[in-house]
Each structure stands twice: as C-alpha cells, then as structure tokens.
C-alpha cells in the first residue's frame, strides 16, 4: 500500500469536484424547471402539446445519454446554419454541450417523477381549496405544487444521484472533471486500478452527502409527520 500515492491522487482528483458540481447544479436547476413545465404540459388538456411533451420524454428516456451528448457535441456541427448562427459560440464548447445534454436528459426523467408527484395530490385537498375559493395559479402555487413536490422528493433525490454519476460522461467529450482527471493521471502513471478506486471513493462520498441532504430536506418539508415538539409548560415545571 502506497499511502502517499493514494493521498496525492485523492487531492489531485478533488480539483475536479468544482467542475462536476457546476455541471450537476446547473443542469439540475434548469432541468427541474424544464421538468415541471413538461409535467404540466403532459397533464394539460391540450392534446397536441401533451403529445409533443410525451414524444420528448419518450426519446430522451429511450436512448443512452451518451448518444444524446454525441448528437449535440459532434452532431450539430454537421449543419452549416448552426455553425454560422450565434448559438455556435456555445455549441462548440464541450462545457455547454454537456450541460445541454444533461439538462434535456434530467428534464425528461424528472418530468415523469414530478408528474407522478402532482398526480398523487389527494383529490380532497384540491376540492377543499376550490371550496375555499382558490383556483388556477393560486391553487397550484399553494396546494398542488408544494404537496406534489414533497411527494416527488424521494424519487427526485435518486435522479440527483444519477446526475452526479452521469457527469462522468463529460470526460468523454474532453471535460476534466473527476473522471477526466482520473484518465489523465492513468495515462501518466499507468496505475489505473488505484486511481479508479480513489475516484470511486470520491463519488461515493459526494453521493452520500447528497442522500443526507435530501433526507434532511424531506424531514424539513414534512413537519406534519413529525412528533410534536416537547414544550416546557408551567405545569411540567411545577411537577418537578
């Protein structure tokens, strides 16, 4: 066991964490908005839009993420008009291509999770809100959305972990995040197994922290499921 080598590899690989965190947080943030939007369209009465949203989800869930990333990064350059448009400033950079691919991918998976969450909101709650005079946006903002999102949170936590794991694919289109740096180190030292194990440990640590965070968020969002806090009452104080 060469502890020094493990430690220096660990420190070296940690320098890839900020880029990974950027890729994850940006795609998750935009992807979440997209997911809510797509879920709402799919639940709407507008048949055509709902069909298009279904098509989007179907295609992105039915193909590997790697294909989606290659289509965006290598594929789009095939078209003259894209290379001449202002979009090319972004689309020729692997960073934005990776983010676009991750966002579209998590948007598709996330929309199914959120749709499930929204559909699980008890009908009685919506009826009660209607009876209290809420409708449309107010009803959505106050009742459907908060309850639906809370229902969807455990499944969405899984999706977040899948996203962290998915960022390793960005190394294939030359991004130097954790896996990318690991590959560079392997080509320098040829000690592949040790380096990959250290990289695996880093991913496990990140995912462990993420799971804790989601658990905490779930706890925070479900006060109604917790025991009532023990409050010191005068009566209790007197009993002593």
């Amino acid at each position, binding site marked *: 066991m060469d502890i020094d080598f493990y430690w220096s590899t660990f420190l070296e690989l940690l320098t890839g964490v900020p880029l990974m965190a950027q890729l994850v947080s940006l795609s998750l943030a935009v992807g979440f908005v997209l997911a809510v939007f797509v879920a709402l369209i799919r639940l709407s009465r507008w048949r055509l839009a709902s069909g298009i949203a279904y098509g989007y989800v179907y295609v992105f869930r039915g193909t590997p993420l790697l294909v989606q990333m*290659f289509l965006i990064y290598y594929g789009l350059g095939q078209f003259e008009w894209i290379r001449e448009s202002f979009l090319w400033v972004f689309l020729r950079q692997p960073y934005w291509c990776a983010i676009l691919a991750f966002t579209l991918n998590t948007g598709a998976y996330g929309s199914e999770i959120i749709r499930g969450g929204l559909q699980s909101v008890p009908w009685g709650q919506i009826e009660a809100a209607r009876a209290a005079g809420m409708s449309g946006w107010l009803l959505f903002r106050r009742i459907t959305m908060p309850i639906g999102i809370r229902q969807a949170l455990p499944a969405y936590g899984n999706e977040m972990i899948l996203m962290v794991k998915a960022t390793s694919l960005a190394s294939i289109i030359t991004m130097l995040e954790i896996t990318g740096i690991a590959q560079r180190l392997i080509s320098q030292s040829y000690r592949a197994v040790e380096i*990959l194990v250290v990289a695996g440990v880093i991913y496990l640590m990140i*995912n462990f922290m993420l799971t804790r965070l989601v658990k905490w968020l779930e706890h925070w969002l479900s006060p109604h499921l917790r025991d009532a806090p023990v409050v010191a009452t005068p009566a209790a104080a007197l009993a002593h």
Partner: protein
Amino acid sequence: MELLSWGDKGWGDELFFATLMTLAVATAAFLLGLVFGSLGAAAKLSRHGWLRAIADGYTTIMRGVPDLLVIYLFYFGGSALVTYVANKWLGTSGFVGINAFTIGALAIAILSGAYSTEVIRGAVLAIPKGEIEAARAVGMSRLLLFRRILAPQALRYALPGLGNVWQLALKETALISVTGLVEIMRQSTIAAGSTKKPFTFYAAAAVLYLVLTTLSTYAFQRAEDRSMRGMRRA
C-alpha cells in the same frame, strides 16, 4: 439516405450487425446480472450478518459510483489481473488482454446485478408468508419449496422491475464503446468519422436504441400479462 443503405456504399449492414452486438452484450450482461442479483438477494435475506453486510456494500458501491468508472476498472483492472495470473501460473510472458465483449458484459453484469438484487429481494418479500408456511406444513423440502412456491411467484413479482433493469443494461452498453467493442455507438462513431456526417449517424444510433427499448417494453408487457394470467383482477 444512401449513407444508411445496405451493402458497400452504405452503412446499413454495419449498423445492423452492430445492433446485434449491442443485443448480445446486453443479453449476456442481463442474464449474468440475474445470477449476481439472485445471489445478492439471497445474501440480503440471509440470517448471517456478514453476508448481509457484503451484499449491502455491493449494492451501495455499485449504485453510488458512475457506470463509466466501473467499466474502466474492468477494462484496466481485468487485463492487469489476467496478465498477472497468466504470467505467474500459465507460463506466458508479457501483456495478456481479454476481449472487449467479455469485459463489457462482465462490467454491466456487475452493475445490473446490483439493481437486480433489490428487485429480486423485493419480489421475494412480496410473497405472502402463509404460502411458505403452508408449503412447509405439507412437508416440502427446501429445494421443492423453492422450485414450486418461491421461484415462480418471485419471478412474477419481479418481472416489472426486471424490465427496468434490462432497459438500463441496454442503454449502458453504449458506454462499452470506450473499450473498442463495435456495438451501435462505436459503429456510429466510425461511420461519422469516415463520412463527416456525425449527426446522421448518431441520429441513426438514437433511432436504433429507441427501436430496441420500444420492442423490449412491448415484450416485457406481454410477459407480464402472461405471468399474471392466473391472478384475480380487481
């Protein structure tokens, strides 16, 4: 469109055989993953704490580490291990490689085995306790109980979950292209490189994957319907 035609001029036949390769790797990996999954589920349901701990470690690691990392580990580590063993005991010298198919199928089998473990464990737990007690009461041996009561019912409960595991395995095979195995992804990259039409070929790859996943959804639905034919419906 001529690019995708059959024969020497187009890449249609190459893509077709690449699709068969994808199916072959995915099937091998899925079936081997079922073996790992059954062992994992048995370990998780075992009375021995150390077996449960090993199985928990296995599923936690495999679900927390990127698939690509596991594939690299098998790619680099597998060859290193085989070279070491061959040089030490088989009297060879120098580098010994394993073929990309074996590495890819093994890596994906280990990954999908972790998912299968959870699916099979859940399925076994879904079997009503009374049925197992009843089987014991009529004097079935452990093996007979497994064959007649446990396995057929667990398979029925596990089928929807295993359908998901299969879809995952199918999509994960795209990552094996990094080891050089000529499956859909690798073949598309080769074609894209030599024709300078990357969009066309990656779009073709996407369509091929969509066809495979759609057909699988249909097949698993059929299997599910068939497995439920004896069940009472609400």
